[in-house]
């Protein structure tokens, strides 16, 4: 993160929860590329998604992020037309495709399990859709060739999927979407079945592909690193509801609620329960055995918030492990002491476990640290980097 310096009090744009066009390549204030309007999806009597609205700008890379069962794949399948929706509309490229067949929606899709046709060669896998569409051979061949070159599949065209490695299979699956020459690509956890190294490689390839092609991409994942690195905007979902929609940095810096705060970031944010109070007319948060001054904390500008923070209330105070510094720092407006319980060396970083205000606290520090368990350490943080959540609503204050 570039803005970890303590003085980075940001300008008034409080982006919490409000959809906006992203800073993507093709983000004009024009018509959205994909537009989901008041979408309801039900499996029998069980409503999975209710009243969901989502606009995706042309050329935008939107990531749907959330834990298992949050409805992100369901939403993607609805956009693809693979499942019936109960109510609402889906528009793609200015057309109402709510009742259109998947093939008529102008989408390409990549699946988690690759879903390659096992009895067809790579070439036939790539060309299957074009052959169904009845395109002449003379037109199919160059398109397959172009995609194969783009994804370095040239030498593999005659092979069967079973003769490919996992990474190659997923590239074929991506190629099968690309060959369709469509504006919108849908990815359903495409990297989940790959091992860590391949996942990183292919993630970079997908990012490059997006920069090169400039298509709209909707990408479902439960991996926050994929989300942070790939997305122009992230939609964090839980229980079928978009919790927050915004650029990765905004979501990281200003999570709208406790769920988003805990879901984004690894190791996750430290939480402490406390009480919002006023001391000498300045806001402070009273934790178990510590008082953290809040005059540098940037309160949310949501209209309802003004009233909320004027009164005392139970709150949860959150601070990210990477925003805590060890030793005495001049700009750390708050400092404390703790005994080290555990040290996890991760190479580039070290995670130090200690306790603070009656709860465990993790601190991310550099990989060279010599801290040992049992030592007493001093640490501090700038409350400007912290997050404060109302215990009643779970929303950020």
């Amino acid at each position, binding site marked *: 993160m570039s803005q970890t310096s303590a003085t980075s009090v940001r300008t008034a744009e409080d982006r919490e929860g409000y959809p906006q066009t992203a800073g993507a390549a093709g983000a004009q204030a024009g018509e959205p590329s994909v537009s989901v309007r008041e979408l309801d999806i039900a499996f029998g009597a069980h409503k999975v998604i209710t009243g969901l609205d989502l606009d995706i700008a042309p050329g935008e890379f939107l990531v749907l992020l959330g834990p298992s069962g949050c409805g992100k794949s*369901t939403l993607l399948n609805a956009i693809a037309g693979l499942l019936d929706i109960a109510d609402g509309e889906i528009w793609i490229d200015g057309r109402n495709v709510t009742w259109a067949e998947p093939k008529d929606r102008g989408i390409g899709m990549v699946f988690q399990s690759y879903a390659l*046709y*096992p009895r067809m060669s790579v070439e036939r896998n790539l060309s299957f*859709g074009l052959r169904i569409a009845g395109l002449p051979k003379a037109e199919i061949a160059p398109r397959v060739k172009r995609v194969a070159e783009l994804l370095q599949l040239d030498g593999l065209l005659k092979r069967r999927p079973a003769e490919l490695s996992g990474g190659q299979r997923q590239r074929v699956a991506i190629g099968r979407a690309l060959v369709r020459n469509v504006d919108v690509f849908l990815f359903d956890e495409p990297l989940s079945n790959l091992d860590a190294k391949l996942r990183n490689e292919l993630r970079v390839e997908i990012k490059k592909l997006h920069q090169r092609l400039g298509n709209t991409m909707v990408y479902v994942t439960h991996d926050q690193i994929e989300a942070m690195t790939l997305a122009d905007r992230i939609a964090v979902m839980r229980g079928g509801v978009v919790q927050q929609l915004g650029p990765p940095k905004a979501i990281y810096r200003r999570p709208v609620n406790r769920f988003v705060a805990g879901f984004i970031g690894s190791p996750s944010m430290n939480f402490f329960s406390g009480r919002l109070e006023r001391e000498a007319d300045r806001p402070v948060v009273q934790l178990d055995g510590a008082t953290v001054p809040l005059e540098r904390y940037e309160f949310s500008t949501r209209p309802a918030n003004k009233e909320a923070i004027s009164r005392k209330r139970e709150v949860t105070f959150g601070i990210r492990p990477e925003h805590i510094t060890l030793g005495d720092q001049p700009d750390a407006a708050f400092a404390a002491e703790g005994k080290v319980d555990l040290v996890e060396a991760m190479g580039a970083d070290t995670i130090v476990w200690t306790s603070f205000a009656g709860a465990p606290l993790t601190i991310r520090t550099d990989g060279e640290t010599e801290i040992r368990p049992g030592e007493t350490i001093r640490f501090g943080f700038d409350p400007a980097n912290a997050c404060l959540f109302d215990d009643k609503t779970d929303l950020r204050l």
Partner: protein
Amino acid sequence: MSTETATPRGPHAESARLAFDRGERDRGERPTSRGTTREGTTARGRKPKTLTIGRIGLYGFVVVAAAFFLLPAVVMVLTSLKSMPEIRDGSIFALPQSLDLSAWAKAWSSACTGLDCEGIRVGFWNSVIITVPSTIASIAAGALLGYALSFWRVKGADILFAVLLLGAFLPYQIFLYPMVRAFSMVGLYNTLSCIVIVHVIFGLPIMTLIFRNFYAGLPVELFNAARVDGGGFFRIFWNVMLPMSTPILIVAAILQITNIWNDFILGLVFAGRDNLPMTVQLNNVVNSTYGEREYNLNMAATILTAAVPLLVYFVSGRWFVRGIAAGAVKG
């Protein structure tokens, strides 16, 4: 919502998995590390090290059981090779004095069923003519129905499937008379198409069940991918699903060939005089002799009739066991 890949389930877990041994399911593994390890570790148990009393008892039981089932077959073969005087005088276990194949020849080409004396070869060819189209048609219908029921969420699919299964559990004798009436009303009764249609109808529940279970074991993403690629109902079935169905097609073929070949009552009731299958002809040969019972001829005719299922068994080997397992669902 994470889309889990469906794991093969139901009676066809094994065949479904087999289909995927060469395809999709191994995630990220190199092709070489497949199949062999899996077979080696799971398919076979540990080799017993010492010969305990329990084990001797077990082997003893196996030998007795094998003898129990083999002896009738041995007696049949021996008897079929003897001449009638030999059968009258000797023990049924005595070896034939000479290899006399005349009973076989007679059973095949000149044994009498009532007034006709053309042997059971007529029945053999009738059975072939009944079995081939019935097998193909019932598999095609079952595969298509199973595919439709597992991938296309047709309204009322569950009810349709429940009704079909109910059909599989009801004794089919109760349908005989209504069906006879129905077929004679449309003028098909006692024809070849009549018996073929009957076999397709009665084969449909079990065929649908095994194909539905097989397709339920395939990842739905494959189907979704084909839909995004623009495949329609038949296109996906023909180009994507059917090429992956080889294992289950073999199982289905084994089941249907043996079932239809061994059928007696449906052939007797619906096939008509000119199309009586081999089993019915055999019964006529065995039961309609006047005077001395020609045991050697009866044995030879029986073995000839059983030859086709036996051949299917020996040729298909391991597939046959799966077919039995699939049939076990029927109860």
